[in-house]
């Protein structure tokens, strides 16, 4: 069997659209398909499109064990995070001005919280432990009289660690705090049961689960009811929570992706776990490899590790036949190493040398074997070239060495 290069190992960044999803979407675009505006009430073009949108809402709700009326269509998880946080903060601001979140959240949450701070809200950014977990003691001790809202993600996009959403939700429910969860990485990957979880608001993205980009949803609980102030106005779509003509083809694509996820989640998870084990076994043959984040509370599709004494960008260049992402500063526009790795206490060197490997539905054993061999070969090559590796092997203490800063 020949392998098609480069191999995609960046499923946490985005996924290819499943061919079954693409086929479904094609039925909702052209003149001979269902192209109508779902808001058109005066002719069958609109009625058919509306029926498709409502059927899609049922399919998404079905995956989440919630009421279809609790699903609001958005353009993606970033918009959902914005609507949830700004919407709830604005609505409940007379009750209090304090919000709790974590340092390891996605930028869509962190940057939204920064904006709310500029508007006069007070935000606590919880530090995770060195495994990347937010402990319940840590969370509980941050709660104040005026805490109105908390936002904790389920699966972390860089580390793959899974937070204890159920327990945090119970605490929030007891204290009357609105609880938002960014589930962009967990939808369709692990079971989410909104009937049992005390989650009030949950953000989803379509393009992380083999659906189209530019599509997402926000779960807004009806019982007990959570109120939001709309952030986008014009036309009153989605019960006034999110105006704008509904993109029927995107919505049916997202729903088809959810339907497939429900059918294939268990099988996908099993296969992905096996592949991750294969990857981890392969990495064991390399000295000084450090896994970042807990492997106990963990989604196996995301593996984050640091290869000491090899710089991340040079490694990514060497690994050009495999598409992975790095926490190295050199690969980001900001020249800052990953804030998530820094938050779990990784030093700059290890943050610079980190790789995020994400495996998905279309990854094969042969793909993983190719990647392991490529990493082994190039880590060896780059270490032969690394003065730090030479010093490490000579027993020089790199921590206490005096570096000539530039």
């Amino acid at each position, binding site marked *: 069997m020949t392998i098609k290069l480069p191999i995609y190992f960046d499923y946490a960044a985005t996924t290819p659209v499943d061919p079954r999803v693409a086929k479904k979407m094609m039925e909702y675009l052209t003149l001979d398909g269902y192209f109508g505006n779902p808001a058109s009430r005066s002719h069958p073009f609109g009625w058919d499109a509306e029926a498709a949108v409502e059927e899609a809402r049922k399919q998404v709700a079905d995956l989440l064990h919630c009421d279809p009326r609790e699903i609001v269509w958005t353009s993606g998880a970033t918009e959902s995070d914005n609507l949830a946080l700004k919407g709830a903060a604005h609505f409940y601001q007379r009750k209090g001005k304090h919000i709790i979140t974590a340092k390891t959240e996605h930028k869509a949450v962190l940057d939204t919280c920064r904006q709310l701070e500029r508007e006069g809200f007070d935000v606590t950014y919880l530090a995770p432990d060195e495994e990347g977990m937010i402990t319940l003691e840590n969370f509980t001790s941050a709660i104040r009289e005026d805490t109105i809202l908390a936002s904790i993600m389920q699966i972390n996009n860089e580390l793959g660690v899974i937070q204890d959403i159920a327990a945090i939700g119970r605490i929030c429910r007891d204290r009357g705090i609105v609880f938002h969860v960014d589930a962009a990485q967990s939808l369709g990957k692990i079971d989410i049961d909104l009937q049992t979880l005390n989650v009030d608001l949950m953000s989803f993205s379509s393009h992380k689960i083999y659906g189209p980009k530019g599509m997402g949803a926000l779960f807004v609980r009806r019982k007990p009811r959570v109120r939001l102030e709309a952030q986008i106005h014009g036309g009153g779509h989605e019960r006034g929570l999110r105006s704008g003509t509904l993109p029927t083809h995107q919505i049916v694509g997202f729903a088809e992706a959810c339907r497939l996820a429900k059918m294939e989640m268990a099988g996908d998870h099993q296969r992905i776990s096996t592949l991750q084990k294969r990857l981890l076994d392969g990495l064991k043959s390399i000295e000084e490899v450090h896994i970042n984040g807990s492997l106990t509370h963990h989604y196996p599709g995301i593996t984050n590790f640091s290869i000491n*004494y*090899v*710089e*991340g*960008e*040079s490694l990514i*260049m060497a690994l050009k036949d495999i598409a992975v992402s790095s926490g*190295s*500063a*050199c*690969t980001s526009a900001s*020249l800052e*190493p990953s804030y998530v790795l820094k938050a779990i206490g990784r*030093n*700059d*060197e290890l943050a*610079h040398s980190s790789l995020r490997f994400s495996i998905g539905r279309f990854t094969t054993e042969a793909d993983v074997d190719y990647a392991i061999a490529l990493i082994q070969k190039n880590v060896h090559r780059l270490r*032969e*070239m*690394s*003065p*730090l*590796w*030479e010093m490490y092997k000579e027993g020089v203490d*790199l921590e206490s060495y005096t*570096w*000539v*800063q*530039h």
Partner: protein
Amino acid sequence: MAYSNKVIDHYENPRNVGSFENANTDSHVGTGMVGAPACGDVMKLQIKVDDEGRIVDSKFKTYGCGSAIASSSLATEWLKGRTLEEASALKNTDISEYLSLPPVKIHCSILAEDAIKAAIADYKKKNEK
């Protein structure tokens, strides 16, 4: 990161990788080590100087991004055959222009210039008096 072919060539086929034996005691060898792991790049550049003050050989080891590796690899190539004065005159802009480094990577060429200067300084210090 869109790199020039020259950067990619030096990265994939780095020239003069290695370290000289007995570098600490050999008075013909000067070693410069600059940068810091926390900044994402460390360069070690060595020169071997003959009795006429001409660089006859040069080696490097670099921990850093592709352009840091390319900058130091190129530096070792350019150093061979130069007198210490000529080597001191090498500027980071010579390296960055030759390699067409993108603006965010100019610091890599500055680091290479620092490494050359540090190696020359080390050689001179060893051969004082």
